[in-house]
């Protein structure tokens, strides 16, 4: 694997940009064949990756009309839209593999909390709500996009043609998200005393949810050649984060990790208390008007 940090620094590379790369529909011409693996596991895996994007997009969209400057409002909305796009492709794939008559909306709006398989990092309030601020938001964006980019770079070689195509498209987007986060980490760390405090505190808050990102789940273990083993991502993740923090003159946060519950966490449907509220808000119209069309 090439140095993942290249994407942060090499402004001349096309992968740096989410535009201009000629994709009209990410999945045009992509085969829909379902690989010969455990279908239940593959459905669950698509849900994991789709829920990460959906739930995090829901959080990022909370910034809309609340960002520190109008230009940043537009940038955060772009990132939320990219992730929402990834979520839709992945939930649609989950529905296709599951083959139980559900679609992306049934999966997003009619599943209960326990059936959501996103990592807890995606769901916690990092601002603009009371749980954080722009510093915490940037810290989560750095951690999440660094992790997901490393994951998608590998997933692009998946034996599932749809997952591979979604990942190939997502890599361009995530490289941009990571770059955006890294640029802001540099500015907040090197800006004022106060902004430095905010990014340090933000990193400490989100760092507590990092170990969960790299824990191999039985679903992933059951899909060799299709799923990426997240344990493999740790070294690259640490290296990229280390490079950014060194450039920013920051130390790696020494935060204790938030424990799973009896060995279970987000991937198993065991979430934080914030998750119920997030879903209540997201799902309420769809659930309170059965039979409605949108």
């Amino acid at each position: 694997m090439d140095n993942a940090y290249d994407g942060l620094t090499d402004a001349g590379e096309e992968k740096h940009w989410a535009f201009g790369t000629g994709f009209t529909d990410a999945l045009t011409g992509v085969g829909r064949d379902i690989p010969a693996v455990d279908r239940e596991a593959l459905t669950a895996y698509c849900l994991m990756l789709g829920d990460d994007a959906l739930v995090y997009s829901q959080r990022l969209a909370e910034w809309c009309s609340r960002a520190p400057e109008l230009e940043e409002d537009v940038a955060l909305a772009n990132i939320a839209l990219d992730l929402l796009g990834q979520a839709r492709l992945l939930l649609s794939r989950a529905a296709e593999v599951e083959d139980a008559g559900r679609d992306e909306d049934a999966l997003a709006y009619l599943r209960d909390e326990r059936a959501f398989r996103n990592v807890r990092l995606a769901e916690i309030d990092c601002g603009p709500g009371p749980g954080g601020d722009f510093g915490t938001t940037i810290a989560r964006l750095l951690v999440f996009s660094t992790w997901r980019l490393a994951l998608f770079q590998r997933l692009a070689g998946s034996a599932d043609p749809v997952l591979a195509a979604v990942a190939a498209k997502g890599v361009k987007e995530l490289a941009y998200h990571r770059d955006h986060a890294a640029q802001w980490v540099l500015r907040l760390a090197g800006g004022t005393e106060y902004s430095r405090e905010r990014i340090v505190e933000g990193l400490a808050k989100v760092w507590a949810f990092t170990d969960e990102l790299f824990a191999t789940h039985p679903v992933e273990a059951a899909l060799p050649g299709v799923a990426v083993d997240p344990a493999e991502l740790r070294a690259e993740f640490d290296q990229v984060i280390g490079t950014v923090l060194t450039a920013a003159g920051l130390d790696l946060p020494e935060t204790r990790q938030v424990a799973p519950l009896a060995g279970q966490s987000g991937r198993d449907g065991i979430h934080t208390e914030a998750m119920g509220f997030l879903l209540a808000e997201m799902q309420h119209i769809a659930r309170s008007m059965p039979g409605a069309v949108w």
Partner: protein
Amino acid sequence: MQSRELDQFEQTVAADHRVEPRDWMPDGYRATLVRQIAQHAHSEIIGMQPEGNWISRAPSLRRKAILLAKVQDEAGHGLYLYAAAETLGADRAELTEKLIAGRQKYSSIFNYPTLTYADVGVIGWLVDGAAICNQVPLCRTSYGPYARAMIRVCKEESFHQRQGYELLMTMMSGTEQQRAMVQESVDRWWWPSLMMFGPPDAESSNTEQSMLWRIKRHTNDELRQRFVDMSVPQAAKLGVTLPDPHLVWNAERGHHDFGEIDWTEFWQVVKGDGPCNAQRVEHRRKAHEDGAWVREAATAYARKKEQAA
């Protein structure tokens, strides 16, 4: 005797050429433009809130993506317009401070609450539709940067209006509850949409001079009439009733007649006592002030980098 600069300015405007930033222009023209463009920019930014209110609850993922992209567009439109105002010597930060201090206005339509998801559709159809009626002529307004910003805005607004109408058509094809929801929303937004064109020509203090300068190209009442004439067949196609018993085709005029607008309510909202005036300005003030430390940090970082270079 009239100055040579004023002659030149008047000739430029009369020939329908564009006035550009470095041209000489009368102080009144500059002041009128700054006021109008700033109000327009503020309207886009404040206008993010009523619809932004529904992003987290959008009832399908497709609708969520559309709505988020739309509200994001409004931030972009505000940006284009603030930039046009800045070519006249205004400063965005100053304009924002005037907005949150209540010293500059924005379109009163955004002081009405969004109460159901149908409002997202009706805002697209009626509010954006009215805005387009107002804005299309501005693509030919006499000040170049404003006209160019409006060309871009209008292109994107057509997406906004169509997504609204499409949402309403979809809802009308749905359940009885959904159809009732659309009608109820149309009932609430129709009159405020008509008010978007401003006071009647007889009471509009700025219209005459603005027309002469070709900042404005049609009167409030002309544009309002055009909007009513456009909306009636669209409402019929949609299957909703516009809440005006006096709305009727007048073959002699070749236009629809319509009922009297409640100008008392109009002035009440304009003067700051609409249902959401305080809430909208407070939301913007909070975002601006909460973001101050971030803007300062980036400025401080840039300064350090420059000094180190």
